[in-house]
């Protein structure tokens, strides 16, 4: 009943078609969309959105910052960061943000992107940690979110076998505290759809619980984190937990922005370390970051000849809905400890990493030939070294990683500013087939960076304020077999993008992307041979505004998929977004109407969708039908905001939606979400 009511209210309010975002949110959205092009479906980008939103409210003081902090903005290239510090070193502190225009590599787009997140104003508050200061000047941010799929799916019915044991409701509770740049703390609870809410099996009291307390910039101790944290160093080859960006229309994203130790505030149930970590300045320009983590992981278990339980696969989804998923929950303990030594100057950064990972059970990879070189055993030691060096208009970067008693991997690249309007990136990588690492997010075509060699080259051309061109090409090959690829294979990828923005309120983008890979033939033959699988995307996108309150976005996207000698199949998507965001109104919101028609899952299309703040969605458009959603935000009080979202798929000519336990009778699937944020 409660849902019905919300449902009706949401529907009524769609009439007001409002925009849940300010202009900076639009920037965040554009940024995420351009940088997150190649991410898998289940990537959690809320941490990034969170980070950017935080800087919007608490801008970085450019005269008092460091490279590590600026790297967290992700869109600044390492060369730009280096040039900024060089400028400050030569000319003294920045007096006006307009000065940025005189720094090499700072083009108009970058400055526009940067402006909302930086300041030159001195922070007036004393940042001494006292009880009174903590109470008086601390920022508290509380988010409570509720959502569910409105239709009842098969998994919630009284099935004899596997079924969802909990309710279809999703809850998120997140509290975050920050005090200047000295103290940070968070507490997160999450319940996914299908999980038990309170005191279910193997949960006390919520399914997912995460938190941290961090003390920052205390003398030699630059960072101390107790609780959940992430470690991101070098080129993500040796030690990198959480997400990292790779190939995308932002061609410089292949040069990773390593931000070192960071408190973890995301609701992703897998990508973090749990324990204690610190970064200590042990000498001038030298930092040491020791860390220790102990946590439980979800794993499917098997039994070996001695009757011992062994680990078959680690499950990263964090879903504990069915009896089987609950049985697998927390079945494995992972212990990680080690340290990172970094030497940092303006131009040169060098780091060395060593750490040890152990499990309480033995890993036994599957018996398929492609798994032959996978990790096998209980313990693993990883060492690595990384560097970056700025010389004139060149930025060189790279990393070497080695798993002891197993493989080696290395990646090297350069970012070059060829002229004031052109920059280029090249990246070479070679990851051996037996390179084992549980915290590896290095640039790769495959989802994990091993068994791959490749070369990437990209160009970014901004001949004027109005035009912008990006293109990259990447060739890769896999020396060993892969899942569904019964021979060494290879492929390539190409992307070209043109942006035309004659005015502040009009922007048109054309994008072409082509990717060819090899995969086992779909035919039944005695021995699988490889077929070329080609996927091409064509996209045209226009954003425009009418007046100060209304803005529009239209997109048409076509995907072509072709495997071997088979016929090409096509997928189409067209949508219209309208957003309403008047300056002085308490209400803002947006809607989308989309039509999609894809021949099969192979020609599916992804597109960014607006959502409630901090919830990041890439919509999947597969099949044939209509998609619509409406978001709205209402400012209840000065520090209290409420978001609502209603989204629906209406498929044509189907009798059921989804498959397995998620199957829903009929042709509709709709979802609602409501979120409250209280900042105090």
């Amino acid at each position, binding site marked *: 009943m409660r849902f019905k009511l919300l449902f009706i209210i949401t529907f009524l309010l769609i009439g007001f078609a409002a925009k849940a975002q300010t202009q900076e949110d639009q920037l965040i959205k554009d940024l995420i969309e351009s940088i997150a092009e190649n991410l898998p479906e289940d990537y959690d980008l809320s941490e990034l959105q969170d980070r950017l939103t935080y800087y919007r409210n608490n801008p970085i003081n450019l005269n008092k910052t460091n490279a590590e902090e600026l790297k967290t903005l992700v869109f600044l290239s390492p060369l730009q960061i280096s040039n900024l510090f060089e400028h400050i070193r030569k000319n003294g502190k920045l007096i006006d943000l307009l000065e940025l225009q005189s720094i090499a590599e700072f083009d108009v787009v970058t400055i526009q992107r940067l402006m909302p997140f930086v300041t030159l104003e001195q922070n007036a508050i004393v940042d001494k940690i006292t009880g009174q200061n903590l109470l008086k000047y601390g920022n508290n941010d509380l988010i409570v979110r509720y959502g569910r799929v409105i239709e009842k799916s098969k998994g919630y019915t009284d099935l004899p076998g596997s079924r969802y044991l909990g309710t279809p409701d999703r809850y998120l509770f997140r509290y975050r505290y920050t005090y200047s740049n000295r103290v940070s703390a968070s507490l997160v609870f999450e319940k996914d759809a299908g999980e038990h809410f309170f005191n279910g099996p193997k949960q006390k009291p919520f399914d997912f619980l995460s938190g941290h307390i961090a003390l920052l910039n205390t003398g030699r101790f630059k960072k101390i984190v107790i609780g959940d944290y992430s470690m991101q160093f070098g080129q993500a080859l040796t030690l990198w937990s959480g997400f990292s960006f790779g190939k995308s229309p932002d061609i410089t994203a292949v040069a990773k922005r390593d931000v070192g130790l960071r408190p973890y505030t995301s609701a992703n149930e897998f990508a973090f370390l749990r324990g204690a970590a610190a970064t200590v300045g042990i000498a001038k320009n030298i930092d040491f970051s020791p860390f220790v983590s102990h946590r439980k992981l979800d794993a499917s278990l098997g039994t070996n000849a001695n009757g011992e339980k062994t680990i078959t696969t680690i499950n990263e989804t964090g879903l504990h809905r069915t009896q089987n998923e609950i049985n697998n929950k927390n079945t494995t303990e992972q212990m990680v400890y080690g340290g990172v030594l970094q030497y940092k100057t303006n131009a040169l950064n060098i780091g060395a990493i060593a750490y040890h990972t152990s499990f309480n059970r033995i890993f036994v990879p599957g018996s398929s030939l492609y798994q032959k070189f996978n990790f096998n055993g209980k313990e693993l030691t990883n060492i690595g070294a990384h560097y970056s060096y700025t010389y004139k208009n060149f930025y060189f970067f790279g990393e070497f990683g080695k798993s002891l008693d197993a493989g080696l991997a290395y990646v090297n690249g350069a970012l*070059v500013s*060829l*002229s*004031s*309007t*052109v920059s*280029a990136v*090249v990246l070479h990588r070679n990851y051996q087939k037996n390179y084992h690492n549980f915290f590896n997010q290095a640039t790769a075509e495959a989802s994990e960076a091993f068994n791959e060699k490749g*070369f990437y*080259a990209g*160009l970014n*051309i901004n*001949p004027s304020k109005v035009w912008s061109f990006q*293109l990259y*090409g990447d*060739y890769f*090959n896999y020396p060993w077999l892969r899942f569904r690829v019964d021979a060494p294979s*290879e492929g*390539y990828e*190409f992307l070209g993008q043109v942006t035309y923005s004659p005015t502040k309120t009009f922007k048109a983008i054309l994008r072409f992307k*082509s990717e*060819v890979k090899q995969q086992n033939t779909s035919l039944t033959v005695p021995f699988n041979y490889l077929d070329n699988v080609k996927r091409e995307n064509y996209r045209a996108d226009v954003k425009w505004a009418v007046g100060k309150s209304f803005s529009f976005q239209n997109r048409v996207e076509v995907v072509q998929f072709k495997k071997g000698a088979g016929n090409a199949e096509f997928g189409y998507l067209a949508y219209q977004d309208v957003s309403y965001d008047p300056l002085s109104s308490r209400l803002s919101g947006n809607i989308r109407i989309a039509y999609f028609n894809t021949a099969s899952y192979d020609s599916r299309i992804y597109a960014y969708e607006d959502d409630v703040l901090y919830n990041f969605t890439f919509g999947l458009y597969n099949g044939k039908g209509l998609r619509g959603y409406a978001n709205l935000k209402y400012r209840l009080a000065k520090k209290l905001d409420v978001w609502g979202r209603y989204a629906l798929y209406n498929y044509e000519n189907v009798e059921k939606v989804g498959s397995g336990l998620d199957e829903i009778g009929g042709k509709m699937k709709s979802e609602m979400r409501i979120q409250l944020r209280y900042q105090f």
Partner: protein
Amino acid sequence: MRKILLAFILSFFIIDTFGQYNQGARLTAMGNASAAVNDIWSLNANPAGITGQKSATAALNYARYLFGDELSEQSFAFVLPFNTNFAGLSINRYGISELSEIKAALGLAKKFGEDLSIGVKANVHQIKITNYGNATTFSVDAGVNYTVSKQIGLGLYVNNPSSQKYKTTNVQTYIPTTVNFGATYTPSNKLVLAATVAKDFERKFDVSVGVDYKFYELLSLRGGLSAKPFKQYFGIGLNYQKLMVDIAVESHPQIGYTPQIGLSYAF
């Protein structure tokens, strides 16, 4: 072994590589995105591109195909400017001792003012197979370059527009008919970006892009990509007074690396 190689070359390479004559180490390193680029080796691409030469220039180029023991391509070019006219001569030989194709060409180009130049070229093609026979034919190429602004140049050229063939039935190979359109963007005197779209009447569209970056006065770094097939190119150029040494490597997913070296001297 040699027979197999021969068959391989005949079946695949004649068509594939002869389609485009070697454009020298500099243009090759730029992904052969050469339609609007000026170079002495424009003689093997857009003949209007030779109007960039400031003085008489001679060049040699040698490319080695690593999958065979002795498969290579040797080329020679000479360009002579007089007033606003430019005459060029090029000779190319591709193959192994048992099989070779030779192309000799004579080109003429003229500058019409600062912005426009037009070039035409006549080619003689000859295929020679030991103990088998010869075949000879002629073809014509033509091209135009236009400078839109200080930074942007356009180029268009066609190879063999009249679709000449070898006038013999015992040779299967053909002289490709292609239309190539390209542009360059020169944001500074250190940097040239080039792109070319090529359409061979018997094949799919090919798109290529290339970069030539003068890192130091002496040293240039180059790179390029082409789409069909997907190839990557790299090269460096050493420029010492009147002498230029260019090195390029082409990387093809199936064939592997093809290195080449070029030498040119401006009198």
